């Protein structure tokens, strides 16, 4: 069976993360620290790819009715495996991001990836799942790179005995972090303006014609 080519652009298309806003909640809560954003990008890729791999290769075994429900269970199972791996690597980090990782299956199934890759060849389906997760992860990292230095005056990376290594950005000089940006309220404001900018750019680049 020949697969359907990937039609929607992964960044400007109708199913792009900023077009659907399925993961708006995740974008707000996960971008307060760069360490969280990096770990969650790994989680996104892991959950999306693993779920699609199981769905694609088990196409003949999985029932057609209620496949969406099965995808929810598969995504949650993949997410719990990732958390377990993080727990073995750094228990402190795992404790801090447990709630955030539980939002990943929610985003993954909410984006409808399992449904959209149904008609594709296995390789195309896996590539699409990987690229979609990578794009969303890229947005998370970009937002975190703006929010953390401006809001907290620091930059964190996953690792170390405490789960996170915090690097000072502002130094000890007269640098006043804008705390509101690090809060969820600031995240929502930044996301709103970012979305407006995205729409403007999309309209200019003719992304709307594609839809």
């Amino acid at each position: 069976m020949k697969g359907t080519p990937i039609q929607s652009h992964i960044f400007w298309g109708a199913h792009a993360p900023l077009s659907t806003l399925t993961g708006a909640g995740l974008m707000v809560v996960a971008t307060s620290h760069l360490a969280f954003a990096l770990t969650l990008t790994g989680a996104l890729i892991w959950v999306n790819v693993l779920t699609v791999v199981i769905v694609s290769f088990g196409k003949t075994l999985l029932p057609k009715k209620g496949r969406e429900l099965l995808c929810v269970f598969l995504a949650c199972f993949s997410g719990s495996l990732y958390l377990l791996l993080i727990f073995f690597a750094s228990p402190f980090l795992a404790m801090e991001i447990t709630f955030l990782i539980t939002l990943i299956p929610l985003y993954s199934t909410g984006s409808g990836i399992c449904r959209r890759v149904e008609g594709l060849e296995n390789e195309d389906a896996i590539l699409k799942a990987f690229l979609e997760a990578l794009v969303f992860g890229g947005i998370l990292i970009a937002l975190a790179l703006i929010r953390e230095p401006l809001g907290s005056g620091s930059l964190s990376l996953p690792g170390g005995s405490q789960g996170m290594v915090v690097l000072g950005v502002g130094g000890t000089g007269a640098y006043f972090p804008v705390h509101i940006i690090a809060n969820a309220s600031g995240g929502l404001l930044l996301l709103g303006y970012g979305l407006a900018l995205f729409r403007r750019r999309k309209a200019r680049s003719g992304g709307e014609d594609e839809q």
Partner: protein
Amino acid sequence: MSILGELGSLGALAVFSGLALNLLLQFGIGISEIVEPSDSRETQWASLFSPHWIILFVSSFALWLFFTYVLIPPAFGFLESFLYFPAALLVSMVLELVFAYFFPGGRVTPAAFESLVHRKTNRGSFKPGKLAGHISLNAAGLPRYSGNGLAPAALFLTLRLAISPVDALVLCLGFSLGCLVAALILREIDKRSSLETAPGVLRGAPLTIISMGLLSLIFSAVSAIFFRVLGVF
């Protein structure tokens, strides 16, 4: 004194329930699924008769009972939280089908209640497959309201904060009412943004998200004042 203490803790919980609105706005989970497209024929208060708030309340309370009393806590350890989403989805889906069976119009109105009591509607047998056709689906092919993150988020918070069934009841009720108020506010913002002169790129989702951020800021400040006055946390 103990009665006063109980009342105090219940009051604190009620305030926290109000906070749930703030948390909901902060997380932005599932609210886009709840805010229905504006319909000029319907008033904004039509949302009050939507069964989804009742489904959210019943499912989060039922799941709290299940995770507290039925499931053995150490069975799954810290991985237990990954059961919240599938469990909430299953319970909400069943409730959504039950509501579709009893209230075919999709609204819990006095007229629908009257019809239910007097058995005016010929409902036939309970066939989930047939009833599922009346439920709107999201992009993932899951029921629109069960497939969002509101029930798991409510469950997550209730499991961590409630220590008795009364606490859980108050929290679940507060969360459902908080969601309802949030939906009403967001629908009004959405309606206003289409009427007022706003830049084209800001209309719709961007303006709604920016408004959510500002509302979140206000609720954070108000809840902090309430907590200070009550002397909790």
